């Protein structure tokens, strides 16, 4: 079953007097439980594609369906809720809320959901932080953590809502190779355990071994696909 369906998606950006064609007609289906890597050189359209899948950006044309729901018809509120309930994000630059400590950052999405009790949220957050090896840092502020630790907090935050899809934009780009490997191992483990769909972009070929499916993108079009 396809969890994500992209049909002839294009994305154009105005840049001065010219138009940048970031995506030029992408057709892509991703199944539940996939671990997909989108690979391509800088400026190939990887991040734009992830943003459109993550409902952060809208396509210029074409349709995007998440769990059979066409996102172009959704209001801002519903799109926000879709991101909250269905999608988890791991950004390239470890975007955490600077004024909240590690535990509060992880709790944040669940608190927005207003569906769980305080104790439930606390216990679940601590459990997740233990799983990513940060049980001893729950009271630290993001500024007091290393890059790898921050990215692990971001993973825990992305997982806390048990989303169907986790999008990671170059999750290892700012990490040393050892930490990057740890992060990818965590992602792989969760994918196999929880059947969470992972889509991550990268231009690092060493990262590709973790993916079940590799989608190559070049100049805004899919240039090839590999299954591993």
């Amino acid at each position, binding site marked *: 079953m396809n969890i994500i369906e992209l049909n002839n998606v294009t994305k154009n950006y105005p840049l001065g007097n010219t138009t940048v064609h970031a995506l030029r007609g992408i057709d892509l289906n991703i199944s539940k439980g996939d671990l997909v890597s989108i690979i391509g050189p800088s400026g190939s359209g990887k991040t734009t594609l992830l943003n459109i899948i993550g409902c952060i950006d809208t396509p210029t044309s074409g349709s995007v369906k998440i769990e059979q729901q066409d996102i172009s018809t959704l209001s801002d509120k519903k799109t926000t809720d879709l991101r909250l309930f269905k999608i988890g994000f791991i950004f390239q630059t470890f*975007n955490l809320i*600077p004024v909240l400590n590690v535990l509060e950052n992880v709790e944040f999405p669940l608190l927005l959901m207003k569906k769980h009790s305080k104790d439930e949220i606390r216990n679940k957050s601590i459990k997740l932080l233990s799983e990513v090896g940060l049980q001893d840092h729950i009271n630290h502020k993001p500024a007091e953590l290393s890059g790898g630790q921050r990215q692990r907090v971001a993973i825990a935050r992305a997982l806390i809502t048990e989303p169907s899809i986790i999008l990671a934009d170059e999750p290892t780009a700012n990490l040393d190779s050892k930490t990057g490997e740890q992060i990818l191992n965590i992602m792989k483990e969760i994918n196999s355990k929880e059947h969470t769909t992972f889509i991550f972009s990268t231009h690092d070929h060493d990262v590709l071994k973790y993916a079940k499916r590799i989608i190559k993108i070049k100049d805004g079009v899919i240039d090839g696909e590999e299954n591993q």
Partner: protein
Amino acid sequence: MKLIFTIALRNLFRHKGKSLVIGIILFLGAFIMTIGNGIITGLNSGLQENIVNKFTGDIVLISEKQESNAVIISMMGKPIEMINNYTLIKKLLQGLPYIDKYIPLAQGTAMLLNEDGEPDFNFLLGVNFEEYQKMFGNLKVIEGRLPKVGERGLLLTDMNRKTNYEYLLNAWVIPPNTKVVTSNFSQEAKLSFEQHKLKIIDSMIFMGMNEKNSALDIKPSIIGVIKFKALNSFFGYLNLIDIESFRECFGYVTAQDSASSLDKDKSKLLAMESENLDDLFSDKQLFVQEKVNQNDYSLNNLQTKLEKKVTTNINLDNGTYNQVYIKLKPGTKLDNAVKKLNISLKKNNLGVKAITWKQALGEMADMATVIKVALFVFVMFIFFVAIIIIMNTLSMAALERIPEIGMMRAIGARKSFVALMFFYETLFMSLVFGGAGIVVGAIVIKILSLMNITTTNEMIQLVFGGDKFHPFLTVMDFVLCAIQLLIVTVIATIYPILVASRIKPLDAINRD
């Protein structure tokens, strides 16, 4: 809710510099606003205390025929229309539950003549001294004394004495059988006194002015020289004279006349103020032929008449007045009382109307209102400036926090979450810094009040609401300050909230 509040609060501490700038603006805004409110309340209360309680009462009754309502400070123009039926008015006033006190009086412009027969103008306020003091208690004797019960004569104001000396009499007036008090001299009088040129007199001749030129010259006994305890520079032009002398001076019907020569029918006619023409042309006799001795109008005879120190046991209410000052019971709403009183007056066909003290004061009340409005506008201007600065600073802060806000939106925070976060940040600063501004403002108001600042400047007296600067804050003022602060907070955050709410997750990514 707690989450938003936590983030908002911590953001304030994270951006200490900006928070401090906004905080200082809020502090200053609230501080100035509190001071302004304190001054406005002091001004209101001062005017209430000094004008209503000491000079005019809340309501003034004047004849329905009176064209201009500004009867108290009307420098020149037509004489004030007479009220000849005070006994009936009094009867009505006695029965009204919202009326506390009242006093009838008469005000008019008299000519003061010097020994060469040259005239100048003086205002006379004809009163029953005892009742006047009971009602207002605003007289401070600086020479001579206050009149005894029923005593006839004049209380000359210090201000009129100085003006009369300078512009007309060239002589310094003192009450008979009193010594010259040099400390009360004007500059000019002091200079003349030092040069042994100062002429001292103890009497003055006034000639009342009325429309029928039926007034008389009077030479009242000068009982004392007075100052008003408050707003002397505004009301110091009003010499006080006993009501019977005033009536004689202005050709009004005196109580003595009423007692001696008015029969029942004439009294009734006077009470009607000649409004009812049918009654006027009835077959009842209107005039009684009386023999008038020419000597009755001689100056000597008049002086003899006025030398009579104590009036005979007559009812002063039976003569003519031209105003009635009324004080309302505490808690009575002025506008309601005026409305109700006018209905009662009309119903009883009394030929008088009720106006507010502000209407009766005319320009002076208008000036006070202008000053009040100016103060209010100033406070509002401070608000406006505070709003602009806070709005600008918060909008800049929102733009600087695009990555953080965009990321929150990306992981599921709705626009309302971001809006509330910004609102709480400003609200918290308003509570802390604005609250501190109100508290410090209240302390400064208290200190200013205790400093007992006085002024003789007329314009500043209007700002003070009297001679003394007595700003203060009521509970309602604190509530008003809090509301004003809340308004500033809400208005100042609207635009930054819009800016912050428009931040999209993509903006955060693009910023990176």
